[in-house]
């Protein structure tokens, strides 16, 4: 894409001043905001992409790719995988890390300044993007979701212009419904999801994570007490390990080390519990960023089976 080493170096230092097309600069800007402060995104973030030449379906595609790659990055850093080839991106990634270290919130911090929003979402729309719910692939997925949840989640409706990705979104919602390992309890799982919603400031995700935590614990105030930072006073040692880990992954997954996995083993959750907690966190983050970036209106009901 960029055969010239000097151009690549400039991109890694600052894409906005690099000699690349304006559309590419808009793409880097969109991705920075998607990763670092998706809750600050406005309809104007999407309008900028349209103004730069993207179609409505391509806008949805970029957000979808952002969500999928968000999972890959957290899975990679949380899994502690070895590099398979030289890190040509090293200098740029190193710069990003240095920037984040200077911020109390790390990755999840205000990024590129927003332009004041110029396009308010219509009150009757499900998101800031256009939809086409007549596409056959979308209709099939919508039917599947309706059967499972009793309604079609607005997130799925908002993504109707890219229906080939629907199997991924449906599986993500399904995996988030309950723990996928024997060791991560429903309470720990619900605590993780709720913590992530606080960190991503996702109004969309909060509808479900609040309902799930209430359903699992019977405590209607726990979601509010949980917050984005410390564990609630009544949290036991295992809950503190899990909540600290989820917070680290959501804020700065690159800070995860083998010590985190060891902590899971020491408190009896094992590798299965660790992988389950990692994926619960990373899928929730990925879906929350997607909902934030596209301005998906919260559903009236949680995306949980009855």
């Amino acid at each position: 894409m960029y055969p010239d080493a000097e151009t690549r170096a400039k991109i890694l230092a600052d894409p906005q001043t690099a000699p690349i097309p304006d559309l590419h600069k808009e793409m880097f800007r969109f991705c920075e905001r998607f990763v670092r402060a998706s809750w600050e995104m406005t309809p104007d973030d999407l309008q900028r992409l349209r103004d730069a030449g993207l179609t409505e379906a391509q806008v949805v595609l970029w957000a979808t790719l952002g969500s999928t790659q968000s999972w890959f990055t957290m899975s990679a850093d949380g899994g502690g995988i070895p590099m398979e080839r030289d890190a040509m991106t090293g200098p740029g990634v190193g710069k990003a890390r240095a920037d984040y270290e200077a911020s109390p919130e790390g990755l999840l911090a205000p990024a590129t300044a927003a332009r004041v929003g110029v396009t308010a979402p219509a009150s009757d729309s499900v998101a800031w993007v256009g939809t086409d719910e007549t596409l056959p692939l979308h209709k099939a997925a919508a039917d599947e979701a309706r059967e499972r949840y009793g309604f079609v989640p607005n997130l799925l409706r908002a993504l109707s212009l890219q229906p080939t990705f629907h199997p991924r979104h449906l599986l993500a919602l399904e995996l988030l419904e309950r723990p996928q390992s024997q060791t991560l309890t429903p309470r720990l799982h619900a605590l993780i999801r709720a913590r992530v919603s606080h960190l991503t400031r996702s109004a969309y995700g909060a509808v479900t994570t609040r309902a799930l935590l209430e359903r699992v614990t019977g405590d209607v105030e726990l979601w509010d007490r949980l917050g984005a930072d410390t564990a609630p006073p009544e949290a036991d040692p295992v809950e503190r390990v899990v909540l600290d880990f989820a917070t680290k992954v959501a804020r700065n997954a690159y800070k995860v080390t083998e010590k985190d996995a060891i902590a899971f083993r020491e408190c009896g959750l094992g590798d299965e519990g660790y992988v389950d907690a990692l994926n619960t966190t990373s899928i929730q983050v990925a879906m929350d960023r997607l909902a934030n970036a596209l301005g998906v209106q919260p559903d009236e009901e949680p995306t949980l089976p009855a």
Partner: protein
Amino acid sequence: MAHVRIVNEAEATGTVAEDYAFISSSYSKILGAGTPTPQVYRTNSVVPEHFRFGAVQNRVLTNDGSHDRDDGPVPGILVMFAISMYSACFY
């Protein structure tokens, strides 16, 4: 070294074995025959449901392994690179 135990191809059964086969075949189409499943998927192999999620993501990203999706004016891989860059993810 990975932080967790990995169920490799030789040990894998059921859906994990199926997903290993699909992911490897998908990458082999663009990187050459016999390309193994990349590390990023493997660390989820102790929980088959999450391993399946990685495989499904590869399916939708590659149009079921055919690698012929129309990305529009910017290659999708560049969008994904930008996400990695701002995530400070070396991988």
